[in-house]
């Protein structure tokens, strides 16, 4: 992590509140990958949360305040990168809907939306970068988190990136594009329904025979990993960025970081 490629774009990393508190290695993996792809990475220090808890609870006024905080924080970066499909989609798609068209805040939200990218799609689509010299002898399976898949169209990019990892094979997950039952506050507001959904997801993951579960959203990964662990399954979960950064030899999600 250094200034090896100073000519690349200046990237503001919005690490997300879940990665900040629950899984910091994903943040460091994101920095390593962005630097490998030639970016100058900065981490704005006043960042907290994108505001999804308010947005998804119907607290529009709360979501507006948090969006304004984040918009100001990220105003100066040519590119903003987020290691999460749902947080990136919140900024890209939902922030502009929080403000009335024609207002200064709407212009600023739209401007930020256009500069904001989810990490894996940014590496492939914007930086045209693929990992080189990364190896991992494992059989993995991939879950497409819904916001990334349907709101941002992320499906091919992570698979292309993972195909460049030597020794790693991907087993097809039946229903990979079906929701895992996380849904943010949904999973604690309606725990029994969420459990029924994630139980089926865990069975499908186990049926692949994979050693590793990979994905691009920590919330969904925690939900699935937590269910797999409760069921006594041996499958270990990582964010795709951790695999690409060569960090999948360390502890998996929940394995005592």
């Amino acid at each position, binding site marked *: *992590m250094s200034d090896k490629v100073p000519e690349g774009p200046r990237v503001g990393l919005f690490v997300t*509140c879940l990665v*900040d*508190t*629950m*899984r*910091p290695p994903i*943040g460091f993996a994101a920095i390593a990958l962005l630097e490998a792809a030639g970016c100058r990475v*900065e*981490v704005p*220090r*006043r*960042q*907290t*949360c994108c*505001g999804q*808890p*308010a947005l*998804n*609870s*119907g*607290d*529009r006024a*709360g979501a507006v*305040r*948090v969006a304004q*905080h984040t918009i100001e924080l990220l105003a100066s970066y040519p590119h903003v990168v987020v290691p999460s499909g749902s947080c990136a989609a919140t900024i890209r798609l939902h922030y502009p809907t929080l403000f009335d068209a024609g207002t200064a805040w709407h212009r600023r939200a739209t401007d930020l939306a256009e500069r904001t990218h989810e990490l894996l799609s940014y590496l492939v689509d914007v930086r045209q970068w693929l990992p080189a010299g990364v190896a991992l002898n494992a059989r993995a399976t991939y879950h497409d988190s*819904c*916001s990334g898949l*349907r*709101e941002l169209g992320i499906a091919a990019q992570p698979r292309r990136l993972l195909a460049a990892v030597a020794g790693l094979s991907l087993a097809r997950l039946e229903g990979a*594009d*079906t*929701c895992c*039952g*996380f*849904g*943010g506050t*949904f*999973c*604690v*507001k*309606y*725990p*029994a*329904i*969420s*459990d029924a*959904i*994630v*139980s089926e997801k865990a069975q499908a993951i186990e049926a692949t025979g994979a050693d590793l579960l990979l994905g691009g959203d920590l919330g969904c990964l*925690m939900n699935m*990993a*937590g269910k797999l*662990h*409760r069921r006594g399954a041996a499958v270990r979960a990582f964010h795709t960025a951790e695999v690409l950064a060569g960090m999948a030899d360390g502890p998996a999600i*929940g*394995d*005592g*970081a």
Partner: protein
Amino acid sequence: MTQPAFAARVDRALADPDLKRAIERTTGTARSKRAAAVAAWPDFAAARELGRDIKDHVTANLDHYLLTFERNATAAGAIVHWARTAQEACDIVVGICKAAGAASVTRAKSMLGEEIGLPHALADAGIERVETDLAEHIIQLAGDPPSHIVWPALHKTREQVAALFRAHHHDPGALATVAAMVASARRELRRRFMAADVGISGANFLIADTGAVCTVTNEGNAELTTTPPRVHIVTAGIEKLVPSTAHAMSLLRLLVRSATGAEVTQYTTFHCGPRRPGDADGPTAFHIVLVDNGRSRMLAEGLAEMLRCLRCGACLNHCVVFRQIGGHAYGGTYPGPMGAVLTPVLDGLAGTQDLPHACTLNGQCQEVCPVAIPLPTLLRGWRERSWREGLEPGVVRGSLFAWRFLVLRPALYRPATALALRVMRLFARRGWIARMPLAGGWTRHRDLPSPARQTFMAQLRQRRPSA
């Protein structure tokens, strides 16, 4: 936090393994057949846009098409009635039945009829009602409301249906196969079709430029319901209007593929006025009841896109929540994602506010909707209204207020998160938290990964003090 009635219905549904099996049997087949039908249709995306545009055009010109339809239907000999509310609609239908001296009516499946409570209204008026759709016949025998808008008896296994027929049919026979059960229902219903005084149907399309009503079925029961009786009554929501037959056909292609994966329904019938001189059969009186029941309010309240809905059921079949809890848990006439949007309109938001919240916002419903209704956006709209109207519980409001207070103040947020991590780690064993106060919603069913020893931001400060 959940409304007790909703929580109880959900618990009952989740505890029923037969229900789960029944739902998966039908919706699983529907999903794979729809996927095959869409894959075999290269122009699907363009057809979907056309379908959306047709519906939006009608919605934007509703007054024009309503009056055109009324004029043309009247010219064809139909009697058109207008009902603002469910009560008015039922009163009109019951009034027609009474004026016709009807003792017995047959009814073809109509979700609008369920919406306005027509079965109850007929019962209250002492008029015998015979449901002629096979699935509606099953749930009439069982005394159940429908649990799916296309397959109302989705919640019944074939074993349960055989038991019902054995108990209620006059000549059930062996009932060893599905074909034998269908034959038993046919024997039971045949004699009722011919004896009915009035036939009541819904409408899939109201065709403005001809004044015709189009119904589609796969059993032919709608034709037997509407042809032999003296009087035919159509009840239809005003959103069923289309400008012409060609528009109806464009929408029918989308509807059928999205509902069952078939290319076309077995029976597609256009009813245009009563029996004319020289006709071999048909009703002597033909009534059409146009029902608003909240639809014009939807136009005014930002729910116009919901008026595109063709009632195909694809959003139900693909919804992870519906697939677990089934239709009855929703507690309204319409279940699944489209029901979660419509039920607060029909029954009021207070008491139904769980429906727009019991959704993961995964977007698959919008993806499969044949007229691209932005269902997650509409559900978010109900969540905002529920928040504004103070229907969300105090504990949710309080915790979101505290969360927002911290999130907007990074200087407080950092020590607060550091403290939270330290507390959470007290409950962790070998990297996992199996139980923790205030985390029961999560840990009742799954383990929670232990948080990091230090936040990313704290670790970064140590690694890059200057950045």
